């Protein structure tokens, strides 16, 4: 095992950049994805029929196809069609739309939206109707019922499962190395190409991922504890998915 390359600031720079990008991807797609998930769930439990079908179809397609394929579909498939559309290249969004990082965040957001949306749908459907009726009887408006009763109760029911979804999101981040985003795996790939070391860089980032998984679990456990009325989940890791 040769880890002498770790003293090279250039390689440390790549690793740091990969580490930061990984955290940004998880944070950004986690927040945006959860917002999407709430909308997807809401469309199915309370939306009009066509909207419910649309959201059902979205969930089925995203959950039924590999994330890697979705990533390439957005990046290469949709991304290459964009310059052909009149005015896209002149728009202010173009620097973002040209960036592989954006497609990574987009694919993860959509993925979290579908998987967490399915979790939220189940949780929202299992909030006792009487509680919503009670809120109505107290004169709550529809938005108020949603924000102050329905969503908090649903999150209370499924928060441990959402923790699992966050860990799965973290574990999908290395996929973006395939579209040349500088994440931890891409940093390891750069080191491998330049030092001809096969295992050391990969094992190092595997160790970082084990640590990150552990930290994320502890952080989410804290969130679960601070959220009133949640039964903390016993298992640390739940099955993976791509």
């Amino acid at each position, binding site marked *: 095992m040769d880890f002498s390359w770790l003293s090279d600031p250039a390689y440390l720079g790549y690793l740091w950049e990969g580490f930061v990008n990984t955290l940004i991807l998880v944070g950004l797609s986690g927040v945006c994805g959860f917002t999407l998930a709430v909308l997807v769930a809401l469309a199915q439990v309370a939306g009009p029929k066509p909207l419910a079908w649309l959201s059902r179809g979205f969930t*089925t*397609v995203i*959950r*039924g*196809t*590999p*994330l*890697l*394929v*979705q990533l*390439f*579909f957005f990046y*290469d*498939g*949709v991304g*290459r*069609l964009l310059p052909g559309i009149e005015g896209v290249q002149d728009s202010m969004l173009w620097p973002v739309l040209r960036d592989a990082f954006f497609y990574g965040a987009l694919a993860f957001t959509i993925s979290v939206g579908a998987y967490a949306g399915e979790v939220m749908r189940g949780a929202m459907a299992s909030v006792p109707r009487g509680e919503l009726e009670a809120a109505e009887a107290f004169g709550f408006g529809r938005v108020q019922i949603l924000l102050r009763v329905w969503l908090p109760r649903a999150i209370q029911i499924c928060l441990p499962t959402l923790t699992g979804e966050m860990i799965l999101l*973290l*574990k*999908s*981040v*290395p*996929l973006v*190395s*395939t579209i040349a985003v500088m994440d931890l*795996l891409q940093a390891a790939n750069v080191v491998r190409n330049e030092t001809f070391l*096969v*295992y050391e860089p*990969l*094992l190092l*980032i*595997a160790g970082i*991922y*084990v640590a990150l*998984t*552990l930290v994320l679990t502890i952080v989410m456990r804290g969130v679960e504890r601070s959220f009133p009325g949640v039964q903390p989940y016993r*298992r*640390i*890791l739940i*099955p*993976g*998915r*791509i």
Partner: protein
Amino acid sequence: MQGYGDASLWDWSGALLNGAVVTLEIALAAYAIGLLLGLLGAIAKLSRVPPLQALATAYSTLIRAVPELLLIIILYYAGQTALNNLMRALDVSGAVEISGFAAAIAVLALVQGAYMTEVFRGAIVAIPRGQIEAADAFGFSRWKRFRHIIAPAMLPNALPGLSNLWLILVKDTALVSVVGFEELFFTAQQAAASTRNYFLFYAAAGALYLVMTLGSNAIFQRAERHVRRGQIQA
């Protein structure tokens, strides 16, 4: 442009279907080996032999904490090096190219086995103790107890997890394209690159995966009805 695109999809349809068959083949083989690994892992974890327990726990915990893509890349190279070293030790001249097919199956099976260990462990623990004690009281041998009591009693508990893992596996097979193995997604990437019609071919690959996952979903639903026959339906 669109007409050209359609013609190219037709030209590549044979290759894509071929890729889908390869994907199903490696998924089925990896699933079968994964089932075996998972069963062994669960038995080791539930055994009263500390070293076995520790080994199985380390296996299932470490594998599940590392991203699948990273694992596949590490195991793929590790397998290749190990095989080359073995061949050198046995004095077979020259480096052997490890068969991509075998490597893809081995790597996916090892990952599946870790998750299956947890599924089987949970399913076995959920069997009421009395049923196992009853088998012992009747003088069943260990094998008979497993074959006639534990296996049929745990299957209804394990099947939802197993079906979930199969769906994950079908989607995980796309990851072996990253190490250059020619399955469905690798073929789609080649088709997309050579026709420049990325949108069409990635959508087509996605559709084929969707057919596979939806199809297997239907099969697993039937299987679940079958193993739950005789149980009181809620």
